[in-house]
């Protein structure tokens, strides 16, 4: 597939299909995607982790790359951000609803 350039909202849509490895909701609903920017062929994702010792970093990076490659993105940069820190307030309404149906209170 030829490299394509998606706009930022298309990237957000694609990331809504990448699940958190430990929770049954997407990274976007978990509030872990802090920013998306597209410049030419380069796609940059700013990602915040729920914990500094997140044992699933590699899975998350892999899943993001695989999903965006399907859209034809090749030059994908993922940057970890700690400022501001992730807090559970960042979980979306939809995310909260799904978690509650799994018996998790937020």
């Amino acid at each position: 597939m030829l490299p394509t350039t998606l706009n930022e909202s298309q990237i957000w849509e694609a990331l809504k299909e990448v699940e958190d490895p430990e929770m049954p909701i997407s990274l976007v609903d978990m509030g872990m995607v802090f920013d998306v920017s597209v410049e030419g062929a380069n796609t940059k994702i700013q990602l915040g982790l729920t914990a500094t010792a997140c044992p699933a970093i590699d899975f998350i990076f892999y899943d993001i790359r695989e999903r965006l490659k399907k859209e034809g993105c090749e030059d994908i940069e993922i940057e970890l951000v700690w400022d501001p820190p992730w807090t559970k307030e960042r979980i979306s309404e939809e995310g909260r609803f799904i978690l509650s149906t799994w018996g998790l209170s937020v």
Partner: protein
Amino acid sequence: MSTNFETVHDLPESCQQAVYDLILAVADSKHLLGLRYGEWLGAPVLESSIAASAMAQDEFGHSRLFYSLVDDFVQAGLPQRQEVPSEYRNIEVLDQPFESWTDFVAANALVDAALLVQLEAFRNSSLMPLRRFVPKLIQEEVFHLQHAQGWMSLMTNTSEQSRSALQQAIRKIWDPILCWLGKPQSDSEKALLGAGIQDIDSDGLRTRWMEQVGPLVEQGHLDLPVSNDTITGEWILGSSLNWDGWDESFRRASKTGPDAETFAQIECFSTHSYPVGT
């Protein structure tokens, strides 16, 4: 207003070594504290086994971030630390495993409090990569002290035997922890304050530490050299610290590092040669 530094490369040469020393001392101490917490998955109650494992995970995560800064220093030209025990800069009381659950609780209260007040002093640091991740670490530390407080109150209220065992365990580690917060008026302290890496001097850090630990000592009627001035409300250290043989760059009086068994464990992580199970 002091200058902010976007990377460790931007630090003035005059303070680079002092910053590197402190960052490595925090990294090694958190790494070793994580190992020690992790050794207690058989705590007296299930809840504390889970807490020990969660606290171990936090400490490992924090050391990972501090080690990433250490790597930046190495890239900026500072020598890579040799992987031998004598080069480790962890707080001395973590060299050996805790001998008892009482030792665990004492370290949980005193060591974690020391690392926390050091993190708090980095909140407004001029070193931006450090300043950016520090709030997340402090957020994760909140329950560590709650856990220690709960156990200290239990141990000091239930029996004289457990109260005096705790008092003894705390006495054993008291001085090295207070010294770890830094030697007053040392060159490295001047460099750290001058460059705005931390916003408070070592005596200030000790005061903040006493504000955390003092009330627990008082509530538990523990006989330790700290008291509260009833007029000013300030916590005062009742003994002077012994700096004989103290190496400020290592923040240790002895350069033995972790014991052989512990070091073998650390080594197998870095060489990926894991012991075969029995």
